[in-house]
């Protein structure tokens, strides 16, 4: 018994150390963002604030407000459309297999792994040619296209778990491919829609490469603006920390309140869902 207590104390000690490591940056962000200006100093970086102040948030919000807006405008249609497309693809590739559907699925899946640097030049030239360069609709379009692999994967794995017998029963009742989708598959889909929408929301919100290359300054999403803010010498670092927290807040909130679904999307990315 005493041995168990000793080992458990030891386990908790390690877990607490790990917790300190994982929470350190978040603690710093929160701590700094509520400090008043006069308490922000390199030497007192880790001391607790004497009172709660929100000036840093106001200053950071002033800098980032349009970009937070851009991110929302981009991410909301993107995640919903991605999910609809992924649901259709996943249904067809799991329940309506034809001769080459596994090959096609693998070829689609490969698109999830490619470094986007390898398609960046054609992409930019193409977006310029069709006049979608620099704008948010273009960024939405690109995120939807390159989101096809992961959304298809998540839905396909989810639908593979739905028994074929239900569908066969539906077929005997005379339902067609689309009828089965509408009356059986879609009503069973809300959990996987939640997973995919949350996943795409987080991915697109946090994405930087496409955002920095395909949008012009007035359309910058928040990641690009934050990076720019961090590069300028004029911004005080307490404001910068508040800006980081603001930029991370939507996905943090999603994680805190819908973590279950977020985790499932995360696991689906490891292929064997």
């Amino acid at each position: 018994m005493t041995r168990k207590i000793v080992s458990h104390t030891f386990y908790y000690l390690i877990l607490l150390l790990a917790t300190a490591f994982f929470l350190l940056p978040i603690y710093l962000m929160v701590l700094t963002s509520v400090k008043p200006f006069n308490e922000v100093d390199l030497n007192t970086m880790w001391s607790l604030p004497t009172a709660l102040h929100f000036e840093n948030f106001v200053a950071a919000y002033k800098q980032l407000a349009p970009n937070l807006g851009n991110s929302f405008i981009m991410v909301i249609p993107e995640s919903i459309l991605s999910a609809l497309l992924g649901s259709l693809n996943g249904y067809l590739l799991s329940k309506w297999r034809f001769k080459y559907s596994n090959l096609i699925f693998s070829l689609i899946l490969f698109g999830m792994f490619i470094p986007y640097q390898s398609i960046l030049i054609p992409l930019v030239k193409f977006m310029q040619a069709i006049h979608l360069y620099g704008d948010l609709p273009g960024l939405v379009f690109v995120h939807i296209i390159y989101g096809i692999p992961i959304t298809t994967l998540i839905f396909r794995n989810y639908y593979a778990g739905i028994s074929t017998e239900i569908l066969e029963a539906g077929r005997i009742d005379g339902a067609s491919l689309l009828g089965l989708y509408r009356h059986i598959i879609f009503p069973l889909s809300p959990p996987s829609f939640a997973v995919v929408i949350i996943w795409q929301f987080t991915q697109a919100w946090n994405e930087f490469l496409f955002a920095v290359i395909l949008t012009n300054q007035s359309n910058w999403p928040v990641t690009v603006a934050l990076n720019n803010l961090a590069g300028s010498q004029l911004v005080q670092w307490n404001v910068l920390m508040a800006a980081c927290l603001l930029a991370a807040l939507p996905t943090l909130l999603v994680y805190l309140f819908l973590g279950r679904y977020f985790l499932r999307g995360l696991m689906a990315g490891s292929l064997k869902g």
Partner: protein
Amino acid sequence: MFKHFKVRSQPLILAIILFIVGGTGIFFFSGNGITNFKGSNFTSIGLLISALVMYSSIPVIATMFQSETVLSVTLLFPSIVAIAVFVYGFIAWSARVSFSAWKGLMPDFTWVGLKQYYNLFHNDPRFMIDLRNTLIFTVGFIVGCLVIGLGLAILLDQKLKGEALFRGIFLLPMSISFIASGVVWSWLMNPATGSRTTGINLIFKSLGLNSFISLWHTSPQPWGMVFTIIPAVWQLAGYTMALYMGGIRSISDDLREAARVDGANEFEIYRYIILPMLQPVTLSAVIILAHMSLKIFDLIVALGRGDIRLDVPGIYMWTTTFAANNYAQGAAIGILMLVSVAVLVIPYLVQNMRSETEI
């Protein structure tokens, strides 16, 4: 084939309507259209939507075939085309650019063969730094994530109180962007000394651990790169832990119980039963982490702020293409990145496909 095709009036009419509506849309948007709506150009989006509406008449026609495979294929077709063009077509296009001499704003497709690749490997010190950095980062990142991830997964397997809370904390960084975490970490790892000491160094200083005070990612080469691994591990160790937890959970309790009955202690159970059974998890974790580290970009952008000592191929490609207009070289770097990832991922995908066909 037409024996299995039965014309029905309802879908036919719907198909014609969709065709006409889509066609009108295309005509409208390719003519004057809405070129400027709230500062955004909607011509192409309009054209795209019109084309999709027009295309949807084909699946509607396909419902008249007895075999629903035709319908399935026609519904998949837009996604297949999108991937074919935006992934495979663009890769081919990039490869073509990498064999050219395109430097400058005007496209120049003069064939120069493998010259860009040759130059990168033979007369490009910056690319050598990139290769070295990628190697350091990849090895450290994978080892760090696997060790911490597996360690935490085993710890959380001990049926301790507050397991869910710990798991939630360790996974939290996954929801934050590399940019935000890079910015915060560059403050934590602030290298300033003397009266301007701050960040983690300040903690060390106040604890009297002066020998721990470090220049972090601004250390001389190649040590600076080693410190960029810390934020990367911070961000993805929890994910690796979750992968391992899934693996551990899939090992039946009966197996452990049987080993216990045979006299194995807890350590032996992990050493001889659980760890060997986690090998497939380790393999997929390595592939996922390696492909991430070969592509690493935004974290280093936020952390390094252009420091050449912390350069990686992803950043070199970006700056040489879009700042120096050296498109051919940028394409060559992009293709090399692709090849390094493909070597890793393709066997994995092929194996995945095979094992599915068996089922």
